[in-house]
């Protein structure tokens, strides 16, 4: 079964997104043991990825906690804490066999009971718990090293979700005391994990220090002695520390495309956009589809003709950001480029607006307020300003409303009290996690990154339901291809250039984490050669 799965994933070679910027990393001969890798954190409220998604918790969390599997190049599922697994013919039972002798950081053995406990915890507490494991039914532990998961319906993305970022293996003897998981004191204090690194110092105001787990269940790993995460909030300070070599490794660096040249000039510092495919960060122009004029599809199409995302990519982002073509990131295994696109054409846009009942009256067709979130300003501010300038040419008045902080923006969008906003979200590798939420009729909720725009198409719902349980990769891919077509046809969002996500790292870093999960995957193979 393992072979079958890996073959299907291999068959899905994601569109090559080789955006290799920067000098080619120095080829290292032999991995070396030892050394302290300095990276950074911009703050976290918990170290337990079971109750919190995102990079701030995930990047140290995947070092502290192990998962059943890891995800290699081209989404190949590889054994980790599970040495192998078997899927029944009807796809409804999955049996995992754990490696022998694995221990938590406090010396207690890792057993099937811990795996069962972790899965139940994630299902109940993780923001994506229901999306990932909603169809998980009974879990049996016939022996300490065997876990049998019974599914109510096939879950095609199950194995992808079993890596530590989304399904960390937690010690039941620590967390199983009945306290609420989201606010469990051991999420921050005296954290006992199962992964390659242990928490040595956790002072979120200053730094997090992880040290090598000498009893790690993979022989001879990890290579690094220590990983230090100093707290650096200010992006400018971070760039300076990178240039000066005070930071060796900066995933999610928040570097603007225009800063790339600077980084490239710095001695011994490299930049890569590898390691973000599984996160799949897409940006889009979101319109509130409940109200005029955006409820009118022709208006949306006119806007799509006016907004030249190729120009945005090339000129504003210096060719470093790939134009988006739909809800799926170009690095996603189910990405399809076969979708309707709307060529830049201002005359056509104007004619369509005239026909749709929005002629120029007193110099204006209509006006609206475009909300600009406070996060990812390096992407959203230039996008919003470009849209404003383009639509001005069509006599559409756009007022930019820049949110002073996150809370202000979230409140407006999640209460549907907005006309249009710049937005963006993570795909995560399986579309059931990060894509379905935006389009499912049942998910029209007052929750951020749910279906806030108010889109409901029964045909799309059928596609989503079918794709959620389709285990044949090719059939599933066809369903998602159809979905991408429909979303672009209906112009639910106008997709902007994808995020320019980049890692900055020094020459000394060997085996840079460049798999689809990048720095959010365990770094037991990474080493330093200084």
């Amino acid at each position: 079964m393992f072979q079958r799965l890996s073959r299907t994933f291999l068959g899905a070679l994601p569109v090559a997104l080789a955006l290799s910027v920067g000098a080619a990393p120095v080829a290292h001969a032999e991995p070396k043991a030892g050394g302290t890798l300095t990276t950074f954190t911009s703050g976290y409220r918990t170290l337990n990825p079971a109750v919190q998604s995102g990079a701030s918790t995930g990047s140290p969390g995947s070092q502290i906690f192990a998962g059943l599997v890891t995800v290699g190049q081209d989404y190949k599922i590889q054994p980790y804490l599970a040495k192998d697994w078997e899927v029944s013919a009807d796809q409804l039972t999955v049996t995992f066999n754990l490696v022998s002798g694995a221990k938590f950081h406090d010396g207690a053995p890792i057993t099937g009971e811990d795996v069962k406990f972790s899965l139940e915890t994630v299902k109940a507490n993780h923001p994506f718990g229901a999306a990932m494991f909603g169809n998980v039914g009974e879990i049996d532990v016939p022996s300490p090293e065997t876990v049998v998961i019974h599914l109510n319906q096939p879950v095609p993305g199950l194995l992808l979700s079993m890596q530590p970022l989304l399904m960390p293996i937690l010690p039941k003897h620590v967390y199983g005391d009945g306290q609420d998981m989201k606010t469990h004191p051991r999420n921050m204090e005296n954290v006992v994990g199962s992964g390659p690194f242990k928490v040595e110092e956790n002072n979120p105001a200053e730094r997090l220090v992880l040290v090598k787990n000498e009893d790690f269940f993979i022989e001879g790993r990890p290579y690094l002695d220590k990983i230090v995460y100093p707290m650096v909030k200010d992006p400018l300070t971070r760039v300076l520390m990178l240039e000066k070599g005070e930071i060796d490794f900066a995933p999610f660096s928040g570097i603007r495309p225009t800063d790339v040249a600077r980084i490239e000039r710095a001695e011994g510092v490299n930049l890569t956009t590898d390691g973000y495919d599984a996160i799949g960060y897409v940006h889009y122009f979101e319109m509130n589809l409940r109200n005029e004029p955006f409820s009118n599809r022709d208006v949306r199409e006119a806007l799509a003709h006016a907004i030249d995302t190729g120009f945005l990519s090339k000129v504003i982002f210096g060719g470093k950001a790939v134009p988006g073509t739909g809800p799926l990131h170009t690095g996603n295994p189910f990405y399809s480029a076969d979708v309707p696109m709307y060529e830049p054409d201002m005359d056509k846009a104007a004619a369509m607006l005239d026909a749709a009942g929005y002629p120029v009256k007193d110099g204006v067709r209509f006006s609206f307020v475009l909300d600009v979130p406070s996060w990812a300003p390096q992407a959203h501010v230039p996008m919003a300003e470009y849209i404003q300038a383009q639509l001005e040419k069509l006599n559409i008045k756009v007022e930019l409303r820049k949110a002073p902080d996150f809370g202000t923006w979230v409140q407006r969008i999640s209460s549907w009290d907005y006309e249009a906003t710049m937005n963006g979200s993570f795909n995560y590798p399986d579309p059931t996690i990060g894509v379905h939420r935006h389009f499912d009729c049942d998910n029209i909720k007052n929750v951020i990154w749910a279906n806030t725009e108010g889109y409901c198409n029964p045909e799309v719902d059928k596609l989503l339901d079918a794709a959620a349980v389709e285990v044949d990769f090719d059939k599933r891919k066809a369903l998602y291809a159809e979905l991408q077509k429909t979303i672009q046809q209906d112009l639910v969002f106008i997709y902007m250039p994808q995020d320019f996500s980049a890692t900055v790292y020094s020459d000394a870093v060997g085996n840079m984490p460049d798999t689809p999960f990048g720095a959010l995957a365990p770094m037991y193979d990474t080493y330093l050669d200084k």
Partner: protein
Amino acid sequence: MIKGTLGKTANTVILLIAVLVLNFAMIHVAPGDPVEALVGEMGGATTEQIAELRAQFGLDQPLYVQIGKYLWNVAQGDLGYSYYYDQPVTSLILDRIGPTLLLVTTSLFSAIVIGTVLGVFSAQRRNSLLSHLVTVLSLAGFSAPVFWIGIMLILLLSVAIPILPISGMTSSEVPEGTFWYILDVAHHLVLPALTLGLIYLAFYSRLSRASMIEVLQTDYVRTARAKGLPRRMVIYKHALRNAVLPVVTFAGLQFGQVISGAVLVETVFAWPGLGTLAFDSILRRDTTTLLGILFFSALMVVVMNILTDIVYRRIDPRIKTA
């Protein structure tokens, strides 16, 4: 005297309650609540999870119940529980207050001493090169944004001439021993303290210069000179004492302002103090933490005002009872 003290205490208590109520109201006028910010950071949640969190934090109750409960808890010395950090606000603040006090007192104290000295010097030779230099520097220091000064100082003293660390309060690997620890913290303290101190240095040199010029023209100074006292005696014993009175007044008043300046400086230099905590709490709508910090700052300002009163009486014996 006792009556005066009692009156002052009552005033202080009323003031602190007003600070709490006003801040509480202001925070709730801002759009967004702690749960929405938290859920956003978590990457989304179900409607049930959101309702559960609201109930857990007591945010599902009417506002007057929330503020009533909050005031009652504060009266008992309990500043509440941080939504974001999952720990008591008092312990959070106590963890962070040390670095902030270190930063604020170092920068304020050096700004006052150096600023006054510069001001006094330039007042004596009003048209000298030094005097003009002080004027230009203080204008620049006063008008430049503090985060810009911070970045420029980093570029100068950490990147171009790499003698100071860019950020943080301690190195990740400090040699054993208290002495090395203190040295390490001092090394990290220079840049943020310099950044924060520069604005106030500018301010105090301007203030003491103006005040000194005024005092030097008064009759009693002329008398002192006329009776043949040495110049040093006239300047430091007679003139300076009166000239620094406004400096002391402002030092007391400005303590609160310095704390607000610390918010920016701490963010730029990743200084683990109350400023960064306040900044984060605003963004996260961590109401209880923010209220706790504001309450603490108000308390510190009150204490500083009392200290200012005492210092005043020492400098100018004429001020006995206000």
